[in-house]
């Protein structure tokens, strides 16, 4: 609903005049890039619709500000290079000229030390919003300056690059902005982000928009003006690439048609920055290390110059590829930094592991670097292996990287690997834990093509197996994987099946773990798994813990409780807590459920100290409502109560109260029983 505008009889104050001149300087100094592209945004009611590409309407970008004024909050999503920043700057200018006060907050300038300071601030006040403005607004404007304005002066807080910070920090920034909009008079916010599902506070008050690809007409207009011909657009790969504003801009500036996104940025570094092949390699090492050391887009100049070489640094600076400020710097577009880091990643197969993936994506916030790395792999074998490794780390990232490349027709991922990826995501649609099922559906939604749609809409796992049977059983690895995946639910598991859990091939290893959960295992086989767990390597331990969660017995519960608390590997502990919740949900009796949750509650101190495990627990207890046992609130609630009782900090206590509230609300019908 439209919000009532605050009216005041006050005349414009000195504060307004002062701020006006400061903002004027900032807004007018940012020239809209030439040539000027026309952008459109599509509006979706929620993330489900957004990921499915379904929108209620498509509008001009000026509507972003209008809707923000009405509902208070807008998130503008786009893929990398989608012109989010340009759009936000246009909105700032427009708002300013219409008499509103725009404040631009640039999250690209987030630096590593800010994480600590951010988490030290109270969660529930305006301290965090004030911090964002004090540290990252351009020009620098303090929250209290804005609040000193006459109440009838509309203010819009434009936050650029939510994906530039870690996922958790990004969500807490949204909470801070939500509080600001709720509490501050006449204030609204527009936040740019990647296509990432967020936990929105006050979800029904956020409007979601997506930047649309440039139209063929728009692309054609600019290409014709630049080259006096549109012949290059006859190539579908080129047309697909140029629908992304960044790459159309690169084409118009550099004058060369690239075969892929990574090629276009490569051309930029070679032609515009004049980096040699060797220099590009050293810059890539420096770029990767910068992400490693700083965990942000902003990096230390001295360290970068040391790794890349002073000459390389000077070339980057002279070409305007980077912006330096007080001993630190950042690339003018994050895709440039991502590309350099991706060169290092694609060339170093030994770094195709979760740690490196976490580094290069800023903690799973931005997957462009992974997509760019995938584009650079020349053979289907390498591309497939890369996708497998990424899938092991984050299925959504694997889907994003493959989908991005496939939509630009620029990756070598084999058809079989695409099918594997789709099927494994497809199986997750029926995951007991709601967020897992949701993420899988999201990942399938961004995947182009009829196969992805078929898997996304398949009515059952059996339908997905049927889909797989239609593919030729070649090569051998695909046949082996498919035979494993399509095993009938409830059929007996063989000892050979159990042996697959130790497979070095992650696709086979994890598929076997997933498939075993739906097969029938004897008590003897379960005993064998339990006995195997302590001696196995971390990956196998994780897989075994994953399987045991599907078999709700007391010995499994006891072992998983011990593993969740004591295993030296954090991912094994993570897997064990998730399996414990699953086991409790599947348990045939309240007693076993009670045993599991009492066990977790008794070790709540260690749970609190283990952030990854704790967050997984918080997510995992939100199981599908239609599969929740009647005593779910009563059983799992004791852990939330223990967490609350163990917490002294008032903010954290409030967090547990809110979790308990969300939890009991979701399963509220149980409370009436």
């Amino acid at each position, binding site marked *: *609903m*439209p919000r009532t505008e*605050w009216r005041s009889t006050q005349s414009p104050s000195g504060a307004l005049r002062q701020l006006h001149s400061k903002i004027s300087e900032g807004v007018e100094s940012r020239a809209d890039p030439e040539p000027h592209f026309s952008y459109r945004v599509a509006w979706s009611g929620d993330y489900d619709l957004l990921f499915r590409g379904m929108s209620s309407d498509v509008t001009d970008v000026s509507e972003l500000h209008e809707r923000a004024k009405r509902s208070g909050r807008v998130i503008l999503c786009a893929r990398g290079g989608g012109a989010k920043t340009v759009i936000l700057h246009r909105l700032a200018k427009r708002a300013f000229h219409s008499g509103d006060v725009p404040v631009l907050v640039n999250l690209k300038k987030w630096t590593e030390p800010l994480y600590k300071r951010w988490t030290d601030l109270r969660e529930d006040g305006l301290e965090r919003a004030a911090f964002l403005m004090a540290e990252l607004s351009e020009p620098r404007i303090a929250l209290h300056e804005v*609040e000193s304005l006459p*109440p009838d002066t509309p203010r819009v807080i434009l936050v650029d690059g939510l994906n530039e910070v870690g996922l958790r920090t990004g969500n807490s920034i949204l909470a801070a902005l939500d509080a600001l909009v*709720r*509490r501050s008079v006449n204030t609204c916010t527009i936040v740019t982000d990647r296509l990432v599902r967020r936990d929105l506070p*006050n979800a029904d008050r956020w409007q979601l928009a997506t930047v649309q690809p440039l139209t063929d007409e728009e692309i054609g207009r600019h290409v014709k003006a630049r080259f006096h011909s549109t012949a290059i657009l006859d190539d579908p790969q080129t047309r697909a690439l140029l629908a992304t504003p960044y790459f159309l801009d690169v084409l118009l500036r550099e004058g060369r048609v690239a075969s892929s996104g990574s090629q276009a940025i490569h051309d930029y570094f070679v032609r515009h920055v004049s980096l040699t092949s060797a220099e590009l390699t050293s810059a890539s090492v420096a770029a990767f290390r910068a992400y490693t050391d700083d965990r942000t887009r902003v990096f230390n100049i001295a360290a970068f110059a040391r790794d890349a070489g002073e000459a390389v640094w000077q070339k980057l600076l002279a070409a305007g590829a980077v912006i330096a400020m007080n001993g630190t710097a950042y690339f003018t577009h994050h895709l440039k930094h991502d590309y350099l880091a991706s060169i290092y990643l694609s060339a170093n197969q030994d770094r195709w592991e979760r740690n490196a993936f976490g580094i290069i994506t800023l903690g799973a916030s931005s997957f462009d670097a992974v997509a760019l790395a995938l584009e650079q792999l020349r053979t289907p074998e390498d591309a497939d292996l890369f996708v497998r490794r990424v899938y092991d780390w984050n299925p959504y990232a694997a889907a994003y990287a493959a989908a991005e490349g496939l939509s630009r027709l620029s990756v070598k991922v084999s058809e079989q690997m695409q099918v594997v990826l789709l099927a494994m995501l497809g199986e997750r649609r029926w995951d007991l834990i709601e967020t897992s099922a949701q993420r899988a559906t999201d990942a399938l939604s961004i995947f182009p093509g009829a196969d992805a749609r078929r898997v996304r809409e398949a009515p059952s796992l059996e339908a997905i197996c049927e889909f797989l049977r239609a593919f030729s059983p070649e090569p051998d690895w695909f046949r082996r994987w498919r035979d494993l995946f399509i095993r009938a639910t409830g059929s007996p598991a063989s000892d050979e099946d159990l042996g697959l859990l130790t497979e070095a091939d992650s696709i086979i290893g994890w598929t076997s773990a997933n498939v075993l959960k739906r097969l029938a295992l004897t008590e003897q086989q379960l005993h064998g798994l339990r006995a195997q767990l302590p001696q196995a390597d971390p990956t196998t331990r994780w897989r075994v813990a994953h399987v045991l969660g599907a078999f709700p017995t007391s010995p499994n519960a006891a072992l998983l409780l011990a593993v969740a608390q004591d295993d030296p590997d954090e991912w094994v502990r993570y897997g064990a807590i998730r399996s414990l919740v699953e086991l409790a949900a599947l348990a045939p009796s309240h007693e076993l459920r009670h045993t599991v949750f009492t066990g977790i509650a008794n070790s709540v101190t260690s749970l609190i100290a283990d952030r990854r495990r704790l967050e997984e627990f918080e997510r995992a207890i939100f199981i599908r409502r239609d599969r929740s046992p009647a005593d779910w609130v009563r059983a799992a609630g004791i852990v939330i109560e223990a967490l609350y009782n163990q917490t002294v900090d*008032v903010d954290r206590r409030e967090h547990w109260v809110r979790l308990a509230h969300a939890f009991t*609300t979701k399963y509220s019908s149980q409370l009436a029983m």
Partner: protein
Amino acid sequence: MAVVTITEGEFRAAQTVFGLQENAPGTAYFVEAVSSDNNYEVVLRRAAAQGNIEAGQAVGASVEDFRPEYVLLVGTAGGSGKDHGQVGDVVVADVVEYYEHRKYVGGRDLARRTPCDQPSLFLRERFVEPLRVDGSWLAHIPAAYARPDPGVPKLLIGEIVAGEKLLGDADNAYQAAVMTVYDKALAFDMESWGIAKEIYQHRGTPGYNPQYLVIRGLSDIVSDPVNEDQRVRWRDYASAAAAAVAYKVVGVLVETTEPEW
């Protein structure tokens, strides 16, 4: 002005007493008549459910949507029996406390405090106190809300203590401890702290000075052995009595011009 209720019964009583029958389309708000400029003298809405969080959310939404100068939380509560408070009486809070923040350490039970706003002195002194004395609010209890037993309700002013539990068991050790610590409390509910905290948070912005009141009809006495039956018998009447007090406060406020500072 925003009036917030919690239960369906409280909402219906307030709707009846205030005559706010029209729903602003697509919103949770009820108004006398829908207006195109979205400006109303009084809006009424329900919280999504019982509890301090829901109450805070409903108040926060009302504040964001309308920036009301006054917010009234109207409904029922359990009485302590202090100050001769009886079922059907109405308590207006002069102070709101929260009993849940405690730390158990080394055999000790320590209270922990978090900041919250307190009910408006302005509203209590200028509008509630006169009503307490003249009883003019009684005439606004609708006839349809019959008093279960004969008698005349009183308007009391005093402490209301909020928590996350519905108190109603005289034998419960936790309830007994709460009543011992808050020995002056006139009523206990599950929402007052939500509004107190939410309004406090809206004080972060200069230029906006929201005032709030908590008005609670006593549907039961928490330590009464027949507490549950009592609540069922009296809650509708208690809701209407609280709404009548709120209506009278709002009526006077609407009639009165803005105070000259």
